[in-house]
């Protein structure tokens, strides 16, 4: 059929509406005081096309409740209302949805079966006047679904606002007839071009960067992951189905009211658990994932197979009505592999932005920083193992490797202890809560926290080295029952150099055998005096307690390099095997990924093969660097 295109001057609009009224009750978008809703109008002036209503005109084709029949004393009265109506101002997405409804409900008629009396008869007694959208609403994506922003078929008339007139396209004999009765002049080529401009402007505003062509071929592979990810938030309200212009599932019930029995069909939702309630009390699709999967497959696969159309038309209503803010356009993009984060190979030299969210003074020259990633995905998922390190950037000053001192029990967040000994660390010390830094990592290997489960573990640490083992110490405390005896032997040059002093009691209370010492006497210090390595020697000094380390303990040692060496020698002299002594080496690490060469010792890279080695391994490296 040749498409006829006419022009309707805006002063003629009222006349247009009166001609429409002769075709039946005219339903159009109008204001009810608070919203725009589809409702019967008497006069053209009541019509408000200023924005796209949330309200769904599906109601006039597939109503919320439909009376099917009445039975009174065995007399069955079927009720088939067929009121002639005109639906004015139907957006192209809804036009496409009505096409789906027709295809779905009409298929009864195809094979000579009885035809559906409700939806089909309503569609047949409806005059559809489409209205092409000049601009989209927040969740519109008809462009991706190929259904808009201008309607191409399945309407009687389609209007586009081209300034002081409407472009009127006819799509049926009825449409042609109406145009003739109005004696509408044909549209000029300028008028038609103007319509194309309006359409292009709308497409541009919608800014769609995806397209669903072929999605039916991949959706089965991707749907489980997508349904799980988005279904998690679903509260099964049913809104997405109810306001979807092409959804048509319904329930049927009999209501006995006195002598009369009414049978009604009413809107139902496949997102409800009870929707698949089987005899025997089992719910077929009990999990929310399975229901979200059903919805996605129906919209993008089953109807495509059934009558060659996606039944999602990109209207965006489901996204608007969802209390959990689940957006259909996001689900489709997820299926297409266009999730929020593009899967690109990461550039390993580019840090991620993070914020300093807490600063504590540990000593006069050591601060502990609590750092949290800015990116919500990282906040959610980033984690590390105890013993690993990160490369921290103070932009403009440089980057330093820092051992993570906290235990990996809260995601997206970690602590580092920093002494202000160089350009970068001095800059870090000047920073305040809320300042931004860069973080790369986590890098390196980790303390053998799994291997020593069920065993005795003794930590020997010196100075700031406690911050390189506090990660596994805290981890073991959080999982205390997984480990046997846990000991901490810790020393520093003086009491002012001890770190985490406010936590020793807490650790003791948590079941750790904590022994603290200072190398030298100091005013106000009443604790142990002597080297930490002397605590487990045969004859410790008088002001130093002797600590018994279990023979089968695994040792973890960290501190200044000299201290590590002496401690390990002493431990071996006491009888511990170097395979059971773990140390963390401080290499001069820069890139953190084994490329720049600074931390290379022999064939090993401290950043990649370490920083944690057994003392036995360390002895194979060759000379100390």
């Amino acid at each position, binding site marked *: 059929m040749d498409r006829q295109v006419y022009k309707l001057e805006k002063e003629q609009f009222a006349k247009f509406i009166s001609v429409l009224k002769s075709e039946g009750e005219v339903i159009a978008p109008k204001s009810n005081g*608070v919203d725009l809703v589809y409702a019967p109008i008497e006069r053209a002036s009541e019509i408000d096309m200023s924005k796209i209503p949330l309200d769904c005109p599906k109601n006039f084709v597939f109503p919320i409740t439909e009376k099917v029949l009445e039975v009174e004393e065995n007399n069955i009265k079927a009720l088939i209302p067929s009121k002639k109506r005109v639906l004015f101002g139907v957006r192209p997405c809804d036009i496409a949805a009505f096409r789906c409804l027709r295809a779905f409900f009409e298929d009864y008629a195809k094979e000579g079966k009885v035809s559906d009396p409700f939806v089909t008869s309503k569609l047949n007694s409806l005059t559809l006047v489409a209205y092409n959208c000049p601009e989209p609403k927040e969740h519109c994506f008809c462009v991706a679904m190929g259904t808009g922003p201008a309607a191409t078929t399945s309407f009687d008339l389609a209007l586009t606002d081209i300034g002081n007139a409407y472009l009127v396209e006819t799509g049926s004999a009825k449409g042609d007839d109406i145009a003739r009765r109005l004696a509408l002049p044909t549209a000029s080529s300028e008028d038609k071009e103007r319509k194309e401009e309006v359409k292009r402007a709308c497409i541009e505003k919608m800014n769609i960067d995806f397209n669903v062509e072929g999605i039916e071929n991949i959706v089965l592979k991707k749907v489980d992951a997508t349904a799980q990810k988005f279904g998690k*938030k679903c509260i099964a*309200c049913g809104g997405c189905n*109810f306001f979807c212009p092409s959804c048509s599932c319904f329930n049927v019930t009999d*209501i006995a*009211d006195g002598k009369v029995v009414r049978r009604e069909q009413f809107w139902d939702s496949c997102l409800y658990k*009870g929707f698949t309630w089987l005899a025997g009390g089992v719910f077929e699709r009990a999990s929310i994932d399975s229901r979200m999967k059903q919805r996605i497959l129906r919209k993008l696969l089953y109807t495509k197979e059934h009558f060659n159309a996606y039944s999602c038309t990109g209207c965006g209503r489901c996204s*608007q009505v969802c209390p959990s803010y689940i957006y259909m356009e996001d689900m489709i993009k997820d299926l297409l592999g266009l999730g929020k984060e593009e899967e690109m190979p990461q550039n390993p030299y580019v840090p991620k932005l993070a914020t300093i969210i807490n600063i504590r003074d540990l000593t006069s020259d050591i601060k502990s920083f609590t750092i949290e990633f800015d990116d919500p995905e990282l906040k959610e998922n980033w984690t590390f193992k105890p013993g690993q390190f990160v490369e921290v950037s103070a932009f403009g000053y440089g980057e330093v490797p820092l051992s993570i001192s906290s235990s990996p*029990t809260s995601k997206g967040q970690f602590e580092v202890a920093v002494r202000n000994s160089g350009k970068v660390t001095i800059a870090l010390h000047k920073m305040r809560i809320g300042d931004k830094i860069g973080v790369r990592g986590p890098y390196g290997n980790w303390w053998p926290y799994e291997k020593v489960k069920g065993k005795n573990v003794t930590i020997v640490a010196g100075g700031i080295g406690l911050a390189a083992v506090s990660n596994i110490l805290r981890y073991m405390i959080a999982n205390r029952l997984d480990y046997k005896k846990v000991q901490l032997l810790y020393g520093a040059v003086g009491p002012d150099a001890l770190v985490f002093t406010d936590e020793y009691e807490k650790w003791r*209370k948590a079941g750790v055998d904590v022994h603290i010492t200072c190398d030298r006497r100091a005013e106000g210090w009443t604790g142990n005096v002597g080297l930490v390595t002397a605590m487990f020697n045969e004859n410790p000094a008088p002001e130093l307690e002797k600590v018994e380390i279990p023979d089968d303990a695994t040792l973890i040692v960290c501190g200044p390099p000299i201290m590590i060496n002496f401690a390990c020698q002493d431990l071996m002299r006491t009888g511990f095997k170097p395979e059971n002594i773990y140390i963390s080496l401080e290499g001069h690490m820069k890139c953190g990924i084994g490329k720049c060469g600074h931390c290379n010792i022999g064939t090993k890279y401290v950043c990649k093969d370490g920083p944690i080695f057994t003392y036995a391994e360390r002895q194979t490296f060759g000379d100390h660097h």
Partner: protein
Amino acid sequence: MDKKPKRVLTTCVYCGTGCNLYLHVENDRIIGATPVESHPVSQGKLCIKGWKIHEFIQHPERLKKPLIKKDGQFVEVTWDEALDFVATKLKEIKKTHGSKSIACLSSAKCTNEENYVMQKFSRAVINTNNVDHCARLCHASTVAGLAAAFGSGAMTNSINELLDSKVILVTGSNTTEQHPIIGGKILEAKEKGAKLIVVDPREIQLAKFADIHLRQLSGTDVPWLNSFMHVIFEEGLEDKEYIKNNLEPEAFEEMKKLVTSDKYSPENTEKLTAIHSEDLRKAAIMFATHKPGAVVYSMGITQHIQGVDNVKSCGNLQMILGNIGVYGGGVNPLRGQQNVQGACDVGALANVFSGYQPVVDPVARAKMAKAWNIKAEDMDDKVGLTVVEMIHAAGEEKIKALYIMGENPMVSDPDINHVKDCLEKPFLVVQDIFMTPTAELADVVLPAASFAEKDGTFTSTQRTVSRIRKAIDPVGDSKPDYWIIGQIAERMGYEYCTYPGPKEIMDEINCVTPSYAGITWERIDSQEFPFGLAWPCPNTEHKGTMFLHKDGKFTRGKGKCHACEYVPPAEEPDAEYPFRLTTGRVGPHWHTGSMTRRSITLDREAPSAYMELNPEDANKLGVRKNQMVKVSSRRGEICLRAEVSSIVLPGTVFIPFHFIEAPANKLTISAFDPVAKIPDYKVCAVKIERLK
């Protein structure tokens, strides 16, 4: 009513979120409901109960005619006969046994206007303060606790502010199931980068999104809240400026001394609460280091014998962090019933008139007497009986007549075997929309009109007063509750409760209630405020109040901290009854089920009673998935299906209370918070036996 199809804009009747929706009416039938796009809170959204709100309204089982019990059977009578009978009996009982032998149970499901009339009936006609309603069973702790701490016992901030909070602590609220629209906003806040901390014994849906989920033993909230504050003080994270400027110093020091004591260190409360100290520390620091932070809570905080202390502790926490009086912060109790906030506001409580003006205050009494044109000396000057006290007093025959409107204590009160014994004694009048188990016991049943059949107002949890509008005529011969009460009063010889309509009642509420003074019938039906106004709204120029205690200026002046010591629940598991029972609700159903069990789509979602049981416990008991079990407590027993799930931890079981065929409240204990008189629905001891 005209026959053209129409949509009626009204407020939802289920929960306290206060969503609006359209009731679709065709040929005098309400055929469905759709959301309201421009409503500021619901924003075009509804939960399953909102979408299917129409399913109960014109149900065939609606009470259509007044009934009087004659010879143990209900007989249909005329309104005149029923109302005269009630009026005569009440007059007689008042004369013979005194005003205080009569009690009135008002309804959080009725409108503000109706609740106001009921408390006026009780106080001006009967002359007793024995008037109360089910807020007693849910948020009485909130009203008492926040009034003591801040001077005002309501949600301090507004719902939409949650979207801008940087950390939200949700405790004792299964928000995505009970206040779904609010739960959705919390999820969206998380999506936008907020931190979410959930403290709840069960692994509710919201917990799956939490940055930290702490699973405390039900009934141990004061310890973990105190431990949170212990950590905050230890880490120096309290807001010293705010404390200095806005809190009462002595009360603060006393509270600080208590919570910083060793007793409340996370390591020492760990055994009590079952929360690992490391996790608690992480959570406390996370909450304290993100601003603004909001606390959201519901029944898990309030329904305990320490309900008031739990609420005060939430108040303490937010005060020391400077989160009160700031946008996006606050203490946000989520009120359950759609109008429980309003019923409290208009004085349907045993201790206050409307606007929380105390009944024991002679100035308040004089004010009401003047407004009502009665003699102040005729008024009851003592605090009256509260909900559960009323019932027990009926059992002891101190209460001779009980007038119950829109409440179902036979399912909602604790220890219902005892409730039944009590309710069988007095002259019982029940006014409701369905024949509930409570109505079954009545001497007179009066059929009331539902929310869709009358005009009036509801007040939501964020203090917004909005309109309900009549969509259809009352079903059968039912009448609006305010009319019924007025008729009874008239037939007792008093005009005090007779009004032309709800507008005139609201006019009176505006006069006697300062916080409602500017919330007039005209203003909330206008184009300017189509969705109502939030109190305090002191005059007709005022645009309502989004959040309370702005900039730390508390309603009572300075915020008051309270030092709360832990008091264990009244009944904990022991050798004979080894499981900890906690009760609650599920999304598709509403409370005693009188509406939702009759709604075809809602009931289909959860058609039968069940109990959540941890797989380890199920194994030990030899109970299979969906097997029937008998659960008993010292009060009673019920049989129901076991849903084996790790949503509860071993040792704890959960039973929703909606199912009258296996009512959870047969098991619960009548133990109360001493101040708020709210029952402890969240902790009692039960044993479980497998049924063959």
